[in-house]
């Protein structure tokens, strides 16, 4: 079996992830922050240590600015719904995932002005159009760091400059890049960063979060969910302190424990090391696929300009048939269709059919890439 669906979720996870989760369940698992006994304190300590890991990963000084959520979608919903009011203006790009577009379209109905900046056919945002659209009075700019369809990496620092010059905040959707690329939130100028734990961070599903920049003012951001936090229990109003303001209900301690182990593994292995390997494999995959007649590649031609996400279509084939044939006949696990990103596929010219997405990760090898190329070649020649 060849797993090339890392953009959906990474698999297999490093063994330390399951070990940390088992250890949490067997030895740690009190309710963090609720009771005062040793198991509750141990659970809270595990979660705090993972906050430190995440903060360090993104260059944040205060670990309490790391807010854990069940996934990146909820982190994006927290930021978008918590910041925007009717009459506000928000600017985004034509490469966004539905986890951004759907909350924005819902707010549009409530009177928020939503402006979508076009992107070039390879997915790169049109910076001139961005500059012209993000005018004074814009409250928020939301940008996908790298496309989940074609891996295109956006020039985040340039977009941050444009946003800040107009007095707007920048929310970065780092679903595909947290763990895949080095990210220094301050150097990039990112006010709010939404991440998932189960893709390039190699943690379990059910983990993610919103990281508030050290200079971001939390009074601007309403909570999405309110409830028990274990703190300020005498009051029926939500507390203001971080991270409790945004973390109601018992957290996913076992998942967060796994995420912590994953981030330690990532740090020991090296993001740069994995990135270099992924660039090499992506380059080989792009080169091999380019030589197949009837196969069309989308996204930036250079592996350096994208995460290890390659999207293709094959002349004479429905993408769904390619996906099934790859799975059934070659044991190659890909993802086909629209990838929850109709806007991105419109930009790429692949809407509504979609593409076959091949996304690589640390466990892939050169022989995996060669097998994928050989399979696609056979499929192309069989029509």
């Amino acid at each position, binding site marked *: 079996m060849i797993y090339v669906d890392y953009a959906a979720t990474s698999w297999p996870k490093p063994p330390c992830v399951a070990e940390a989760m088992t250890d949490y369940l067997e030895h740690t698992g009190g309710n963090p922050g609720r*009771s*005062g006994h040793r198991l509750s*304190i141990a659970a809270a300590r595990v979660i705090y240590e993972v906050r430190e890991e995440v903060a360090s990963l993104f260059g944040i000084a205060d670990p*309490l600015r790391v807010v854990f959520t069940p996934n990146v979608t909820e982190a994006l919903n927290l930021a978008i719904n918590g910041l925007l009011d009717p009459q506000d203006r928000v600017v985004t790009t034509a490469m966004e995932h539905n986890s951004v577009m759907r909350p924005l379209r819902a707010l549009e109905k409530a009177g928020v002005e939503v402006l979508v900046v076009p992107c070039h056919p390879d997915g790169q945002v049109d910076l001139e159009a961005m500059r012209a659209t993000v005018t004074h009075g814009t409250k928020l700019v939301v940008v996908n760091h790298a496309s989940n369809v074609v891996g295109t990496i956006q020039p985040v620092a340039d977009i941050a400059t444009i946003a800040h010059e107009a007095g707007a905040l920048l929310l970065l959707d780092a679903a595909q890049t947290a763990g895949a690329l080095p990210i220094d939130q301050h150097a990039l100028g990112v006010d709010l960063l939404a991440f998932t734990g189960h893709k390039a961070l190699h943690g379990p599903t059910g983990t993610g979060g919103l990281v508030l920049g050290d200079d971001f003012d939390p009074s601007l951001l309403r909570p999405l969910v309110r409830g028990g936090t*274990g*703190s300020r229990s005498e009051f029926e109003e939500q*507390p203001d302190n971080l991270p409790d303001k945004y973390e109601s209900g018992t957290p996913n301690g076992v998942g967060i424990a796994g995420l912590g182990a994953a981030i330690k593994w990532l740090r020991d292995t090296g993001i740069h090391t994995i990135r270099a390997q992924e660039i090499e494999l992506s380059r080989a995959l792009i080169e091999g696929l380019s030589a197949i007649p009837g196969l069309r590649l989308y996204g930036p031609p250079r592996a350096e300009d994208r995460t290890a996400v390659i999207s293709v279509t094959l002349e004479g084939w429905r993408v769904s048939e390619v996906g099934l044939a790859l799975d059934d006949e070659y044991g190659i696990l890909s993802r086909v269709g629209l990838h929850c990103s109709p806007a991105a596929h419109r930009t790429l010219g692949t809407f509504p059919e979609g593409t076959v997405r091949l996304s690589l990760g640390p466990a892939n090898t050169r022989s995996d890439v060669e097998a994928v190329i050989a399979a696609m070649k056979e499929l192309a020649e069989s029509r």
Partner: protein
Amino acid sequence: MNEYGVAVFPSSSVAMRAEALAQRAGYAVRLIPTPRDVSSDCGVVLRFDWAKRSGIESLLREAKVDVLDVRPLRQSHRTGGLPSA
């Protein structure tokens, strides 16, 4: 017998941060359930040797840890010791 003090925080996450900072700085501290006469919050406070009060206070202040209160601990029962630093 040691006299203890407690530092009170707005949440257990903040208490965890205070504990980590104090331990890294070499202080013997322990998280204990919040005494009811200190606060009606559930959760924990950080107990320390009262003689180390000024050092711990300045450590937390420099790290911008949100401290609600620092006070001596009134003990009505035995409450265990501090772990060695």
